[in-house]
């Protein structure tokens, strides 16, 4: 599910999953939870925060550009 199993482990799991009902149910639940988290729990960075960070960094970079020649 997390793409951490080797190809061999994955094949073994898929080959045996259908013979075990609790495994099937458990797997289906984990997959649906993962999908639900992925599709429902995302928020975007507020535009004003992005603008503020860019402005602050720009100011720092300008300051550094001015200061470096003075000390080199």
């Amino acid at each position, binding site marked *: 599910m*997390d*793409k*951490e199993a080797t190809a061999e482990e994955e094949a073994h799991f898929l080959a045996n999953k259908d013979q075990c009902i609790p495994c099937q*149910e458990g797997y*289906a*639940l*984990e*997959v*649906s*939870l*993962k999908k*639900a*988290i*992925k*599709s*429902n*729990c*995302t*928020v*975007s*960075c*507020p535009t004003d*925060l*992005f603008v*503020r*960070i*860019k402005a*602050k*960094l720009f*100011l*720092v*970079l*300008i*300051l*550094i*550009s001015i*200061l*470096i020649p003075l000390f080199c």
Partner: protein
Amino acid sequence: MDIPVVDSKISPEMAHAIFQQEFFPHMDAMYNFALKLTNDEDEAQDLVQDTCMKAYRFIHSFEPGTYAKAWLFRILKNNFINDYRKKSRGPSKVEFEWVEQSISGDEDAEPAFQADLHAETVNDMLGDEITAAIQSLPVDFRMIIILCDLEEFSYEEMARILHIPIGTVRSRLHRARALLKVSLAKYAKAKGFV
């Protein structure tokens, strides 16, 4: 304003280019992670801003072309642990015996119960309910769920970001998912979904 410490080999133009190309594309993910950690919009904004300033300060240790998102998340997590965790509004009121076991270092202890929850029930739930269940988890469990299920980091990357062994990543993730299922099962029962 603190004047950042940067390596003389990194010119302001290079730093600017690194931010534009490597760091800024991850702003949404960083803010999302910060918000899930702090549970507070203002604190999340401060945390992301501080993380960007620290990323600039330590930009000499970033190797362009490597995984910038993991590098930024590591800074953000450390920043949160060091400066924000104490003052954050944490729910963390989760009274499960094996949460305590994990805090006391017994990472391999098995949960003593199984959540009565089914895939169909989860599919019927709304985003707010899933989000609320995640927010109800203790922060260490919340962190690993976000990193794995939302941001899709590998176990190895999570181990590096959280500075824990890969075995702990596995056990903590297992626990976090079990806790999440319990939380959702309680909610589903209360709402009459099951």
